[in-house]
């Protein structure tokens, strides 16, 4: 590391932040941009599992809440890609790389949604897992990203409320409705446990070292379990992991080790719905390419 890079590292480790036009080490800029781009990709792909249910929402209120939630995610993608663009990579390039499979998005968005139970479980638990990661970005050393995270976290809190509301209504409903929730939870538990990533020690995690995020993967997972397993159990739901429990002495949760190979397979483009969803994105983009040209042509 050069002297200047070392000073930069010490600066960010001391809580210092930088802006778009500031000097930053190449390795910092590269990691940062890739991390933020993956986040943008995830928001954009996260829309697809949920939008099918916008059309099937069973009440007007649910229809509005779910549409608003998905709209927020599109809005987040907009905020995030703008940040990536100001770091040097145009939005169109990000979208091309996403569609071609060159860049990645989070594991949970590669899986199918099968029932209305998924709608509740995703909004409640997947968004909860996401908000934990997102809160760890509020103090990101890259200030433009930290600033948009504030808006993103605020909007995500509505999603969790919506998810809770859907789930609680189902749990207080018919036997079939309760079964919808349990069945969805059984399917989503594996991806949820993988969501925060492999256990890398925080002090070996470049994202933490450069103060891009302030929390390691394991810590995030523990926080998720601590916050949400009690909420799951108190509703009479079961988690499909016989080893799941909290060690009262250490305060740490133990569980069956997630399948890290599965995670790797999925995020490298081999999830159950990866190709379908990328194809849908590609088709949507191609069908509307003429619109973008018309708008650009006149914006001289």
């Amino acid at each position: 590391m050069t002297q200047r890079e070392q000073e930069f590292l010490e600066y960010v480790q001391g809580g210092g932040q930088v802006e778009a036009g500031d000097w930053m080490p190449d390795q910092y800029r590269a990691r940062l941009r890739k991390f933020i781009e993956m986040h943008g990709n995830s928001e954009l792909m996260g829309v697809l599992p949920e939008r099918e249910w916008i059309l099937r929402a069973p009440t007007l209120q649910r229809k509005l809440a779910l549409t608003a939630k998905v709209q927020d995610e599109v809005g987040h993608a907009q905020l995030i890609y703008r940040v990536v663009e100001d770091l040097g990579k145009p939005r169109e390039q990000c979208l091309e790389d996403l569609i071609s499979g060159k860049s990645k998005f989070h594991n949970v968005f590669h899986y199918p949604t099968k029932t209305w139970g998924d709608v509740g479980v995703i909004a409640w638990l997947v968004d909860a897992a996401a908000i934990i990661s997102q809160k760890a970005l509020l103090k990101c050393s890259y200030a433009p990203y930290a600033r948009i995270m504030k808006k993103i976290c605020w909007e995500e809190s509505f999603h969790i409320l919506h998810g809770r509301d859907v789930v609680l209504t189902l749990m207080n409903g018919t036997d079939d409705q309760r079964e919808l929730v349990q069945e969805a939870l059984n399917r989503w538990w594996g991806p949820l446990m993988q969501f925060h990533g492999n256990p890398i020690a925080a002090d070996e995690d470049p994202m933490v070292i450069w103060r891009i995020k302030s929390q390691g993967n394991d810590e995030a997972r523990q926080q998720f379990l601590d916050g949400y397993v009690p909420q799951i159990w108190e509703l009479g739901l079961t988690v499909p992991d016989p080893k799941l429990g909290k060690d009262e002495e250490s305060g740490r949760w133990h569980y069956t080790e997630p399948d890290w190979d599965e995670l790797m397979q999925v995020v490298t483009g081999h999830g159950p719905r990866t190709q379908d969803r990328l194809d849908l994105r590609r088709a949507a983009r191609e069908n509307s390419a003429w619109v973008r040209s018309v708008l650009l042509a006149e914006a001289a």
Partner: protein
Amino acid sequence: MSGRAELLLAIADDELILGWRDSEWTGIAPFLEEDVAFSSIAQNEVGHARALYELAARDLGTTADELAFDRRPEEYRCAQLVELRLPGWEHTIARHVLYEQADAERLERLRASDDAEIAGLAAKIDREEVYHRLHAEMWLERLKGEPRFTAALDELRPLAEAVLDPSLRDGHTPELAELLEEMTSVRRSQPAGTTW
């Protein structure tokens, strides 16, 4: 059914079905900023439908959700224009332009209604529709030179008259039944009266 309920349902059904169609663009609109914007329009439309259904529901002794979801396709009173599934942006915007023009006139008449509740609700809805009209005009300005857009306008214009004049509404396209089938698939999976 009273004339008032009929009137309310015709407009509510238009807004509901149009809102449902417009919401199909959430997540796949031509670009992100427009995606967010158009989704708000879709939500407003469903919101307008809800307010109109609530008014009709009191008259009819039912609820807004039951009116929105639980009728048979032939009982809906929407104009055919809003039923069409339009996967091309040129058609969606053409419909948006035509519908907003017709709806502006419709709302003007309703705001002048002797029925204070209807006049009041029409005024509220219109205050939101001002923005929809602005949006439609913005896009019209940009696309008016595009042949595929002008073709779409020509294609859909004949259907716009029925928005303003319900007496011209003569049955439904098969697309309405398909839309309602999907729209009610979760709701119908449990007995009527189940809370969601």
